[in-house]
């Protein structure tokens, strides 16, 4: 299924993903989050908080 990058408008085929998964736009490299899987849609990944880390 095709998704569109909200940052640069690139369109590409994305499958086998789960909701909440982080993917990278193949064109502009921005981190995106899979918002839904049926149909597949993506949005900008959450912004890193100050206390985020491993």
């Amino acid at each position, binding site marked *: 299924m095709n998704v569109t990058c909200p940052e640069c408008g690139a369109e590409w085929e994305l499958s086998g993903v789960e909701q909440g*998964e982080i993917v990278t736009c193949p064109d502009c490299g921005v981190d995106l989050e899979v918002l839904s899987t049926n149909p597949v849609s993506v949005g900008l990944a959450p912004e890193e908080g100050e*206390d985020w*880390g491993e």
Partner: protein
Amino acid sequence: MTGMSPNGHAPTPLTRPVRLGVLVSYLRPEEKAILAAARDRGIEVAPIFDRQLVIDLSSPDAPGSGLDFDVVLDRCVAHSRSGYTLRALQRWGIPTLNSAEAVRLCDDKAENSLALELAGIPHPRTLLAFDVASALQACETVGYPAVLKPVTGSWGRLLARANGPEQARAILEQKKELGSFHHAIFYVQEYVEKPDRDIRVYVVADRVLAASYRTAKHWVTNAARGAESIPCPVTPEIEDLALRACAAVGARLAGIDLIETRDGLAVVEVNTGGEFKGLMTTTDVDIAGVIVDEAVSMARVRAA
């Protein structure tokens, strides 16, 4: 399941599949691998997205907060969110892979340093100060270059190396300007001469699963900063230090960062939320599978 449950009672086997919750901020390759490993084992597994949680602190049990699990694995990157969630789960008697206390000791670099020092583990000299003037004094004490790190957060963000007092003052003033009180807690560490690499060791339940060298041209070697992973043989010294570091913070699952100093290996930090994406490419060990097996062995035993 074998062995004793965390509360010391002999477990009775569950008559239904174990319910494993994986606390996440989002799914990275590590979490995807963990979910897949759990499904392969016939475990009921579900991601728990931190931003969707409404934790009922007044409730005597977990289901009221949608947290009806036998065991929870913390893979959340937002440290304050995981801290509160783990403490609530602890109150409700739900075992977590890594206790709230172990996570607290790892999510704050100053607590981490204290715990490592208390356990007599080689660790770069570290000073803590709460004001620009005293932090400058701390820099003088460790000598230049001095390394300044935020006590919370990781991935090498806001790490700074001050080559002299002027630079140190500029960095410290700038940190203070960031506003959040955390940035006015100055964690000052000696700069240790080392090769352009560090060692990431992965431990699950007193067992070293694998190690890799992370190399980078930049002095901050961190996978999130684009460091490359290559296999590192697990020597007895690596194993001993990694296990001792885990024990020092009470972690059952952790990524330990080691550096090679002139005086031998030293532990930089223990990460309870240790990433292993790099390690997944350098080892045949099924890290996600071992993590899931460990979670199952800790699963709360209750009447189905």
